């Protein structure tokens, strides 16, 4: 066998301080991997597993404050750590390219897309600008971007998220690199867009014969592209093998849990309470517009009884987050009413009474920004308790302890700041903050999408367990059908600001499916290697028939 394209040999990357002593555990701990030409390797693991660190190391880049303390990264027989900055620059972008998670944050918003894609050719291949632009347009065409000839004229904010992500793939592929590193390129996208990007990545890699290092926490996604998988945990290699082998016969316990978390649960058989109970929250023909965008919501109605969970699903831009904002009073509606226990709620948050506010609580998508970084957990929760219920210091303290206990956090966490907690722990604090108000309805806005799959699973289980005790109604806003199947009793499918399908989950997700529901359902990646091929084939057939 010929030499591998990239080989990582017992690599160890550690955080180093100025004094030289590294006290924390290594970011990457003795990992060996190899990647042949044209091969795609999937790196799977939770956040903190070291997968991004390895991805960057394959570019010969080590984050400031870290250092390689053992092992080598060999790209085409050259040890990247020994290369000069000039030599590295000649490799980066030309022979090894990188696609980042957030295309929006990676493009320069002040320059046209075509220019940014053509730049690599001008720098590395000494192409003149005119022909570089022509080649960029050819790439846009390969990636199925609209109007490829003039696509490069646009600025990053003028194209959609999925298009921007594909433009970044064009930028990375401009010089036909031998190795493409993809760091969670579809994580920020919704499922329907994810398919486009996955298909684009796969066809580009195949056509250019490039090898790929695909970093993700989603087993089902990477299964569509990768020949082999490497599972990482806490900077160590847990298991490696061919994609089929890992999916079908995982040997390590950790891998087994990952695979299991990705498999679809059966539809919950929830016995919905008697319909005689009056709804807690009733939304009646709600409509809303932004100044520049009419009908973000049009004629939205639903009702929610205690203990029920309504999942609002839809692609990004379907208006589901706006719905929550309007109901919570953060955005004015044009028409329609929000009734709480048959009592109409004022539409502006400032006009609602404290009691009305208390009954409606919200849990956010990003626990990082949902907690004030300068307040300790005890204060965050304590304020919510004393604000609504008052009481002596001791009773507030007692309630805070109770809340921490309910969400499964040690009581000592009351003295920590949010920065000292992990993502899952922060989300638990957010849940506790919502529970502090003893609410009747809790809005969960994509609460698990920023979390690792196993942590997300725990958070969902926690929310469900708490619901049994509190009988609070949940509104889950999500694009993740897995979450819907897991928790929802009712589903509302949204498309362009309207609810196109609404009812108990057993009805909405059973045939006959609304076409949009079907699109959403089939777009959910499944942990089999042939899923993407099947979907694309199916769509092609449908297109030919019509």
């Amino acid at each position, binding site marked *: 066998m010929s030499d591998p394209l990239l080989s990582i040999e017992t690599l160890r990357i550690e955080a180093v301080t*100025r004094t030289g002593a590294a006290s924390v555990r290594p970011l990457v701990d003795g990992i060996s991997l190899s990647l042949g030409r044209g091969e795609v390797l999937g790196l799977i693991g939770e956040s903190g597993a070291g997968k991004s660190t390895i991805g960057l190391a394959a570019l010969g880049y080590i984050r400031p404050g870290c250092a390689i303390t053992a092992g080598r990264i060999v790209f085409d027989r050259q040890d990247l750590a020994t290369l000069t900055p000039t030599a590295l620059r000649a490799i980066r972008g030309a022979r090894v390219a990188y696609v980042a998670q957030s295309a929006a944050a990676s493009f320069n918003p002040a320059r046209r897309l075509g220019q940014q894609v053509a730049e690599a050719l001008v720098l590395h291949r000494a192409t003149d600008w005119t022909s570089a632009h022509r080649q960029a347009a050819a790439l846009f065409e390969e990636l199925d971007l609209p109007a490829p000839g003039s696509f490069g004229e646009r600025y990053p904010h003028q194209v959609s998220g999925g298009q921007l992500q594909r433009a970044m793939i064009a930028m990375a592929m401009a010089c036909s690199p031998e190795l493409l590193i993809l760091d969670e390129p579809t994580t920020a996208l919704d499922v329907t867009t994810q398919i486009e990007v996955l298909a684009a990545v796969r066809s580009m890699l195949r056509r250019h014969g490039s090898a790929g290092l695909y970093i993700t926490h989603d087993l089902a996604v990477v299964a569509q592209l990768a020949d082999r998988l490497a599972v990482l945990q806490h900077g160590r290699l847990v298991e490696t093998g061919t994609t089929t082998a890992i999916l079908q016969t995982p040997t390590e316990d950790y891998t087994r849990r990952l695979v299991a978390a990705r498999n679809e649960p059966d539809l919950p058989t929830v016995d919905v309470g008697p319909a005689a109970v009056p709804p807690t929250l009733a939304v009646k023909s709600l409509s809303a517009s932004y100044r520049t965008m009419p009908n973000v919501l049009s004629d939205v109605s639903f009702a929610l009884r205690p203990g029920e969970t309504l999942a609002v699903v839809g692609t990004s831009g379907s208006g589901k987050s706006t719905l929550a904002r309007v109901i*919570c*009073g*953060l955005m004015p509606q044009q028409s329609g009413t929000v009734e709480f226990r048959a009592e109409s709620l004022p539409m502006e*948050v400032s006009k*609602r009474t*404290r009691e009305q*506010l*208390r009954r*409606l*609580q*919200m849990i*956010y*998508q*990003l626990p990082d*920004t*949902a*907690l*004030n*970084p*300068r*307040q300790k957990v005890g204060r965050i929760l304590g*304020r*919510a308790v004393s*604000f*609504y219920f008052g009481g002596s210091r001791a009773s507030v303290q007692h309630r805070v302890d109770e809340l921490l206990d309910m969400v499964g956090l040690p009581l000592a966490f009351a003295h920590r*700041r949010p*920065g*000292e907690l992990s993502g899952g722990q922060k989300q638990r604090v957010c849940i506790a*903050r919502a529970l502090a*108000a003893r609410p009747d309805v809790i809005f969960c806005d994509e609460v698990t999408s920023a979390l690792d799959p196993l942590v997300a699973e725990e958070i969902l289980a926690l929310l469900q367990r708490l619901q049994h005790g509190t009988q609070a109604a949940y509104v889950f806003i999500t694009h993740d059908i897995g979450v819907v199947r897991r928790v929802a009793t009712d589903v509302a499918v949204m498309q362009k600001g309207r609810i196109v399908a609404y009812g108990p989950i057993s009805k909405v997700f059973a045939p006959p499916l609304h076409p949009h529901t079907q699109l959403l359902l089939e777009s959910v990646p499944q942990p089999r290697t042939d899923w993407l091929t099947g979907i694309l084939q199916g769509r092609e057939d449908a297109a030919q028939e019509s």
Partner: protein
Amino acid sequence: MNRSMISGGIGLAIALAIAALVMAAPLIAPHGEAELVGEVWAPPSADAWLGTDNLGRDLLSRLLYGGRITLLIALGSTLLAMAIGCALGFSAAIAGGWVDTVLARAVDSVMAIPTLIFALVLLSVLGTSIPVLIGAIACLASTRVFRLSRAVAGNIVALDYFEAARLRGEGLGWLMVYEVLPNALPPLTAEFGLRLCANFLFIASLSFLGLGIQPPLADWGGMVRDNAAAISYGGLAPLIPAAAIGVFAIAINLVVDWSLALQAGQRDR
């Protein structure tokens, strides 16, 4: 122990030493503030350690007495400017809508008038007592603080934790003091250091124009002006008060940098 801590400690020591010395001026100054002790611009001697000024007064004594007023006005006006600017800036960012528009445009209009001329008008109408000086300088400096605090708060009010507090039903006071202020501190601390130096110089300009601290009271800026001519004869007289301003300003900024490093450490932990 790191570099910012060492330099911050040095800055703190210098600032405290200067503050202590000028506070104790009546006890330790060898001569009176307005007392004539010798020749004009006499070189340093056993009697007048730093020499004498343009009227033959002891430079060291005037430096000590002058420091009291200068520090009082500079610190007082900067703190007041920070308070006014932050209160208005945070309110504008939190309230948004027309409140924001009115406040921001009002501040823009004030900023459109050259600061020095505005100050001259204010002071000639209201007189030049110390409270008026502090108030006038603070009002003018608060426009810049407003701009910064509004921009910083604008980023914070867009975050989920702020929205969560607003959804809880918190009032403006809580939102400003507990949600916005602690998270806006780093840039505001830096601004404090810069504003303090600017106000020092501003007082000096006002004194130079005769609308600041009135003779025979001493102040550092006024001393630079009074003795400016000595520079052509190679005299040290104007350089000493100028150096005092510089040293104090540097010391304060060292302390500010230290506090910024501390806050950054706390945030990143």
